[in-house]
């Protein structure tokens, strides 16, 4: 029995005890899925977990607090759930967590780019008719004649999946399938590559990237840990942290707000970056703080729902913080 059949059975078993189960279902075309909210057994037919299950299902949990919820999670989603639990933003006894071994998800932007490169831009992602995913390849048919394109899976895999240390849900009540063993280690290679640039180049980089920003705040809305919702300080006029002006400074400062509010909380699920309609690498700022927190406080967000997040506590003698001499 395939993983998806097992998952569907597990969901149907869980459904009577919960108000709904959150997973993934059919999307706008064969390259996309949408989040699926299953309330009745027949809703479960549309469920599928796979290479297109990009959405972080933990996103909806804080708003649904007080209801009994079943949630199907990839490894990264389960870390978001873990972090929300650690911060007591959701309740463990209201949740039924269904885990499965995730083989990584596809970055749709990379598929679009690969298709454009292969066809000199004559095929657009909206023209994809079918998409099949194997361990090695992504096979898509596209265009009027349904021409076939074979893309190496590794080339179109989301960046976060290439460095994923937790393909299996780190917390789950039901785990379907066999756990994947992985040797991957996230050494923040992307940050190291970025840091090959000088400070001036980095500032110029952000200035150039942020110019495209439309302040749509999709990054914020897609973030499972941005739990302030309508009370975001970026929207507040008193105090006014962020003006209405449309400059690079405002756009960048919003990203600084987002990153600093996620310090020690971000699990690196990459939803902010995926949601960005103009492709700004906003995850980089959050990863830079995650790396800092990991180094300073020996803490990786979302792994232990019982842990106290590092910025909500302190040690009188900090192990990694050196007092600075003023001479």
């Amino acid at each position, binding site marked *: 029995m395939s993983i998806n059949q097992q998952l569907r059975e597990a969901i149907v078993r869980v459904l009577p005890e919960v108000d709904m189960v959150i997973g993934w279902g059919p999307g706008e075309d064969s390259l996309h899925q949408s989040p699926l909210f299953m309330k009745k057994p027949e809703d479960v037919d549309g469920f599928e977990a796979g290479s297109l299950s990009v959405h972080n299902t933990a996103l909806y949990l804080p708003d649904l607090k007080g209801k009994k919820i079943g949630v199907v999670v990839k490894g990264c989603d389960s870390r978001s759930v873990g972090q929300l639990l650690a911060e007591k933003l959701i309740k463990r006894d209201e949740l039924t967590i269904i885990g499965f071994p995730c083989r990584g998800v596809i970055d749709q932007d990379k598929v679009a780019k690969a298709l454009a490169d292969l066809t000199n831009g004559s095929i657009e992602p909206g023209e994809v008719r079918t998409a099949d995913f194997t361990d090695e390849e992504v096979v898509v048919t596209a265009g009027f004649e349904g021409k076939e394109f074979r893309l190496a899976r590794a080339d179109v895999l989301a960046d976060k999946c290439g460095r994923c240390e937790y393909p299996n849900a780190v917390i789950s009540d039901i785990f379907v399938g066999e756990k994947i063993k992985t040797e991957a280690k996230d050494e923040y290679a992307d940050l190291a590559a970025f*840091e090959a640039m000088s*400070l001036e180049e980095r500032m110029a980089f952000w200035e150039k990237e942020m110019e495209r920003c439309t302040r749509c705040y999709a990054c914020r809305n897609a973030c499972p840990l941005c739990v302030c919702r309508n009370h975001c300080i970026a929207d507040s006029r008193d105090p006014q942290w962020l003006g209405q002006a449309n400059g690079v400074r405002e756009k960048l400062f919003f990203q600084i707000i987002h990153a600093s509010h996620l310090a020690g909380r971000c699990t690196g699920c990459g939803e902010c970056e995926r949601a960005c309609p103009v492709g700004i690498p906003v995850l*980089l700022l959050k990863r830079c703080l995650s790396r800092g927190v990991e180094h300073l406080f020996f803490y990786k967000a979302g792994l232990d729902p019982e842990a106290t997040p590092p910025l909500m506590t302190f040690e009188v003698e900090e192990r990694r913080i050196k007092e600075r001499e003023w001479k």
Partner: protein
Amino acid sequence: MAVFSNELRIVAFLCNWCSYGGADTAGVGRFAQSTDLRIVRVPCSGRINPLFIMKALTYGADGVLVSGCHPRDCHYAEGNFYARRRLETIKHLLPTLGIDPGRFEYTWVSASEGQQWQKVVNTFTGQIHALGPAPRLPESPGFENLLAECKAQGAVKTADDTEQTGGGA
């Protein structure tokens, strides 16, 4: 003490109980200090939102200094312990944004340490002057610019324009 002819903008956040008192002690003791510092008095270093620092640096400060009570000496017992974690964390963000991490420092100065305060001010000011004025992101377009741009495209007409062109119908 070095006197700089080109004064830079340094914002200092000092806790009310120790460092602000320390700065006062330095003043009473007439310890000469560089004059680049603008002091913002806050109830406790634990009150300092790391975004205060980021906002100052993004919107034109050349340096930011934070000073509070020594660890274990906080007036509110543990405010500076939380502050220490936050400040140390936010320091990691600066180089990724292209801001020299030396533009932000934090320290502990008690109310009696007037001389230490003088040393901190002069050291930090010297450090910021060594780095020079901070590179700035471009100013956000103000209303005037936007209006001028719209006018240039013929999208907007104001009362003044109508008068200049001989009045509307």
